[in-house]
């Protein structure tokens, strides 16, 4: 198989940081409640990472 197209961990980490930053900013502006939001939606990080791993595997197999 060829080398990986991208790093799923890197992308996941980056996306999580960006999302955390956006949510934190909105919370500071009083638009959202940060804690309940994080408590409910944090598993999306695992879903995103798993999906990226599958995409990475498919890209490498097809290339």
């Amino acid at each position: 198989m060829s080398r990986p197209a991208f790093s799923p961990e890197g992308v996941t980490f980056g996306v999580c940081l960006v999302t955390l930053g956006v949510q934190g900013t909105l919370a500071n502006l009083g638009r959202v409640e940060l804690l309940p939001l994080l408590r409910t939606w944090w598993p999306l990080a695992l879903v995103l990472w798993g999906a990226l791993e599958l995409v990475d595997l498919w890209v490498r197999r097809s290339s």
Partner: protein
Amino acid sequence: MTARKIALLVLIVGFAATVETAWHVRGDVKIGPEGCRVMGGRFYGPSWGFEAAAERAVAGGQAPRLEVENAFGEVSVSAGAPGIVKVRLRKVVFLPTEEKARAFAERIELRLTGDGPLVRVGTNRDEIGRREETGFETHFEIEAPPESVVEIRNEHGRVELSGVAAADVAASFEGVSIERVAGDVKLEARHGEVEIDGVGGALELNSRHGSVSVSGVTGASKLDVQHGDLEVRRSAGLELDLAHGELEAESIGGDFVVRGQHAPVRGFDVFGRAHVETSFGDVRLERVGGELYARVQHGGVTASDVTGAANVEASHGGVTLERVAGPVEAVVQHGGVEARGLARGARVRVSGSDVTLDGFSGPIGLEVDRGSVRLAPGSPLDGEVVARATHGDLRLEVPEGSRFELEAESVRGRVDAPLEGLTSEDEGHKGQRASGRHAGGGVSVRLKADGDVTLESRPVRSRDGWAVARPRAGGKPTVEAPAVAASPTPKATPRPTPTPASPAEAPAAAKHPPQATPDGTSTKR
């Protein structure tokens, strides 16, 4: 699996755990949405208070029976006017705004039900609590006729009770205070301090995880206390199971019976017999009017002024006895015995330390392993003395006027008996012996020790100071009797099914609409 993947997985899971923890402690660290937070069974956060009241007349002729059921709030019952039960309910609602709190408080109903002499007081807390996450407290202040028999069931709230005929209370957290109950009291308490003062009948108490103070009980007290210290003053009789706590008892009018574990015991002025069993703690008893029995594992016994016989067993602790009027039996392992003023002799078996009997009368039987013995009778020998000490010396101080027949032996030491009529023999490797009749002979004295055996003469001592002191009366506990004869001790009843208030009660409730009493931005206890 690469280290990068592991690290990211740990990071995500750790972040989730942090978020979950922050959610659960958000009240304490002031993060996240406000509202009611519960910690340690108490509510925290902004709260608002509202009041409601009701009253119910009680038919005359029979003693009123009051049953109160509550949770998360205080219940206070005191003596009021005869023939009427007055109830005041303070509702404290933990919501951020007064409007929301008032709307919620209006859903909390004060329920005053029952018929005839029976009055039931409660709320619809169970129905509300099932559907809501809002925290609220319900505090009752009740005035009941003095002849009332009161039953209280309160969880997570303090109970205060005074001036009624009899009481049956079960409470947890925040403590219980019971005063001036004319009849019997039965109490089950968990995780809270208990204070009882003035019970005209018997007291039955079961307490866990809280200190207990009992005074002025006219009838017998039967207590079961664990994980808390206990103080009892002025009770007719005391029977007690105690674990992991200290006991101090004073002025017990009857028998004093203690079954303890990991419980030091101190008892003063016991008019009846004292029977104490405990472990990992010392026992100290003074002025016991009857017999004394004390058994301690890993602890010592100190007893003085015992009117009856004394039977003492101890291990890993010494025994100290002073002024015992009756015969003494003592068995001590890994400890010694020190006794003064034993009026009717003693039988003592000791291992691991010395024995000193000073100022005794009567027969003595003594076996000491790995210890020395000193015997100093208070008056001329009047009873048989048999003493054996292995790995130690033996010394007998003979008061003038004593008449006895001696057989003394020292296995590896010397026998020194320079008294008239006694002769010593040296048997070489078999040790030394002494025998003979002193002052013409009399009681038998047989002494044997591995070490030296010494007899010496001394003057007779005065018996002043050896008199056994009687228990001191601390004042008989009295409690005012109610105007009407009290009914028998209340028995536990099943939880009542809430019924709607009768039409007669509705107008009373309507007379006192909820009043908002803001408690400030936070109600922290």
